[in-house]
């Protein structure tokens, strides 16, 4: 062969080898990972165990895609479960991009109807063929691989029942937080509480009915707003680590009342606006911050 063809063959081989090397390098390890994505002001929590992923909320924009890019192997284009805690822009808007770019197997959300036009876009994508809709019912558990997700709220007072989208309950745009899906995620003995933007009333409700011992990790409700976590909840669930998903905002999140509350209870907290993506890893017994 001529020298030129040899060069081409050499380049093609180098390309394939580097592709394989990167693939080997990105094979997921056998630990449980929780990533609080740095999506600015908003929430996006990525939960990974081997080849299964759960994404809880998508942040306000396409930044969530870069977070998925950073933490998923490059060939994995499937997300086993997407959860939308409640239809506020800083939680759902990024999910539009996720549904467009990834294959989503299951979609857990509250069938609420709000007036924002962007939400209609997401409703259409979430109702696509191939996506299985799951509605939150208090006490319902969803399993993805070895990950278990127990739904604690909404409590089934008319919303979150088995309704189809046409029958979605109409609520005012500013009442969405009350319907936040709150869930307890467990992997082995490791447990974490995901709270969406739940208001103090729901926080106290969950505290009152709590009977399952301390958790390792809490996603601080509502970006650390004072209209979120309550002292009762901290007393009940006794988290070791609190993660605050927050960016630049004009609401004063995280509120100093909440930070004081965490400090007084001796709970270590991490903020995405200070640390970027916050990755916590667990083997099902211990956990550590990466």
């Amino acid at each position, binding site marked *: 062969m001529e020298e030129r063809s040899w060069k081409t063959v050499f380049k093609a081989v180098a390309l394939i080898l580097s*592709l394989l090397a990167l693939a080997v390098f990105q094979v997921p390890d056998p630990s449980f990972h929780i990533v609080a994505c740095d999506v600015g002001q908003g929430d996006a929590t990525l939960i990974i165990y081997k080849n299964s992923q759960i994404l809880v909320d998508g942040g306000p924009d396409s930044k969530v895609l870069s977070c998925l890019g950073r933490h998923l192997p490059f060939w994995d284009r499937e997300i086993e479960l997407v959860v939308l805690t409640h239809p506020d822009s800083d939680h759902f808007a990024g999910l539009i991009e996720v549904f467009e770019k990834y294959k989503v197997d299951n979609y857990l959300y509250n069938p609420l109807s709000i007036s924002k036009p962007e939400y209609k876009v997401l409703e259409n994508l979430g109702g696509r063929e191939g996506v299985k809709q799951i509605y939150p019912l208090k006490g319902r558990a969803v399993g993805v691989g070895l990950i278990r997700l127990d739904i604690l709220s909404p409590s089934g007072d008319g919303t979150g029942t088995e309704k189809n989208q046409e029958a979605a309950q109409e609520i005012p745009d500013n009442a969405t937080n009350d319907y936040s899906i709150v869930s307890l995620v467990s992997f082995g003995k490791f447990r974490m509480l995901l709270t969406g933007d739940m208001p103090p009333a729901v926080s106290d409700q969950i505290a009152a009915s709590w009977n399952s011992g301390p958790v390792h990790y809490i996603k601080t409700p509502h970006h650390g707003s004072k209209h979120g976590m309550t002292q009762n909840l901290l007393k009940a669930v006794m988290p070791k680590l609190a993660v605050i998903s927050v960016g630049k905002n004009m609401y004063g999140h995280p509120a100093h009342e909440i930070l004081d509350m965490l400090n007084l209870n001796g709970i270590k907290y991490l903020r995405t606006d200070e640390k970027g993506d916050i990755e916590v890893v667990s083997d099902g017994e211990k956990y550590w911050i990466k």
Partner: protein
Amino acid sequence: MKHIIWPLLFLLVAVRYFTARPVYQNGDRIRISATVYQNAVKYPSSQFLKIAGLEIYLPKYPEISYGDKLVLEGTVEGRKLKKPQIVSIDKKTSLLPLVRNKIIDFIGEVLPQPESGLLAGILLGAKSQLDPDFYDKTKATGVAHVVVASGTNVTFVVSFLAAALFLFLPRKKAIPFVILGIILYLFIAGFDAPLVRAAIMSSCLFLSQATGRLSNPKRILILAAAGMLIINPQWIADLGFWLSFASTAAILLFRARIHAFLSRVPAVIREDLSTTLSAQIGVTPILFVSFGYFNILSPLINVLVLWTVPPLMLIGALGGVLGLAVPLLGKLVLLTAYPMLWWFTRVVEFFG
């Protein structure tokens, strides 16, 4: 005669600029019907467009892309159209913008971010798919010209087309096809000022080859600038327009000298380095004044990543087009782009 042409051209541009200025006044409520020729710039919660010389910010959805027919209403305030409302939007009526969007979507479905945004940018100048943080880093490192619609895109397309066609056809017969290919690329990628500039110039250079006339690239550059401003005077306020002309002018003026000066530099990087260094002379002042960016390492960073651009365009075009017909095959081809994209993003993130 020869001496009259240039002032005359200047006068023509000036007359066009002043007569084409919009006639509406501040506070006027107006309705605009237009076909969008440039892609909307996407921001986290809005998108930005420039139509009829007016800057317009619209909500993020419905997404507006090149080729859409749009009817808008709003109130004029200075250079901005405030309180804009979409009266109607006729999406993707023509074939080529549709092909463009399908290819971009397909790349986004196969590759993760920011690699997919990078490939869409390199292939089609599709800035809309870039992660905003990553885009800022490309600007800070001085490689943004690769990922936004720029002459670099056209230059690589032209080199490919020419190389491929000259294999099968005699030079003179191949040239019309090359020019046709350039125009086709313009229709797919959109009519951004830098692309139009590069398309005009490379077409002129090939035409002069075909007709055997001597051509002077500097003169072609000035004529292209004047011609573009006569057709669309709004480009005078377009940063991409100025960057494109400044970099090309600087390359024409300084590249040969820098190339000679770098005689000791290994041949592998000498070409890219001398092109980049000379282009920097033109664009650095503009970038510094408009963004405050200045990166002394920019030529080095360019050398580190520029070699990936031609193979990435080839793989991207092949995979993207194949993917429209046979998704699985297109996916396999696009995945081979991953190592180079990985390298490119790591370099940008390291220096950014």
